[in-house]
């Protein structure tokens, strides 16, 4: 598994498509969540976390299923944990859940790249 992270509008998606031109990437904001654990590539992973939480489901369970079903997937996710703790309880929980899920994906991944200004920096490589 590979994980590509970074802030909004940093060129994560372009970076992923350049590095993996032959992959089909599913948009986690609109894709069928049931099928998403079997995707070979996922964009906006954080949106899957939000949609699952809105549906009352556990994003960690989804994350484990994703690892089990698609151990070679490329996951792209927006880093969202670098701000003031949100006042809204759901937003607080969402932010934390994205962090925990991505920490799990990062520990499973053989390569983690952080994209800033369109440039990828490998922070983990095995």
């Amino acid at each position: 598994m590979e994980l590509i992270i970074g802030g909004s509008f940093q060129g994560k998606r372009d970076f992923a498509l350049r590095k993996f031109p032959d992959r089909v990437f599913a948009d986690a904001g609109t894709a069928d969540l049931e099928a998403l654990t079997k995707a070979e590539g996922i964009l906006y992973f954080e949106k899957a976390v939000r949609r699952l939480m809105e549906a009352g489901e556990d994003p960690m369970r989804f994350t484990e299923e994703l690892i089990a079903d698609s151990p070679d997937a490329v996951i792209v996710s927006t880093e969202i944990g670098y701000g003031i703790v949100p006042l809204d309880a759901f937003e607080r929980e969402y932010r934390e859940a994205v962090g925990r899920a991505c920490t799990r994906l990062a520990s499973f991944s053989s390569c983690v790249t952080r994209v800033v200004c369109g440039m990828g920096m490998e922070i983990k490589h095995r």
Partner: protein
Amino acid sequence: MNILVTGGSGSGKSAYAEDLVMGLSGSNRIYIATMLPAGEEGLRRIARHHSLREGKGFVTVERYTDTGGLAGKEIQKEEHPAVLLECMSNLTANEIFSENGAGPSDAFEKIKADILRLSEETEHLVIVTNEVFSDGVLYEEETVRYQKILGEINCFLGQFCDVVIEVVYGIPVILKGGDRLENTVEQL
């Protein structure tokens, strides 16, 4: 040695900092808990951190302000303690906003003095702080002042500490002192 561990929300920085302290010399591990226990969610967070630390041999000291007051008392140089202070974002809020705090004008100098004092009495001091500066949201004045003070404290700590590590989803990104870290820590 003084080590700063920073990161965003849910980044795994606490777990990393705890494991870091486990790898440092000294069996006398002290955890300074700075989070005021309030509300159901707060208690849940504290309970989660408790279970994270379980079995790691920490003595927990709750201290919401005036951490320097522990120096020479609960924390003594002769015992060569490895101290984990968690976390600076709570401590700063407490010093600024709480009744027993130093207040917004003095919070920075107070915390700086406390850290210097603690550092004198510890074998190793590991401080966990938080990145709360990059969401691009314009907050009200009180929150901006909090961000500014915590930012100043983080900059001071970055200079003061021998090692600075940003934890990104559980991955340590070394910002300063990687060689010193390798020489001091047994296992990472």
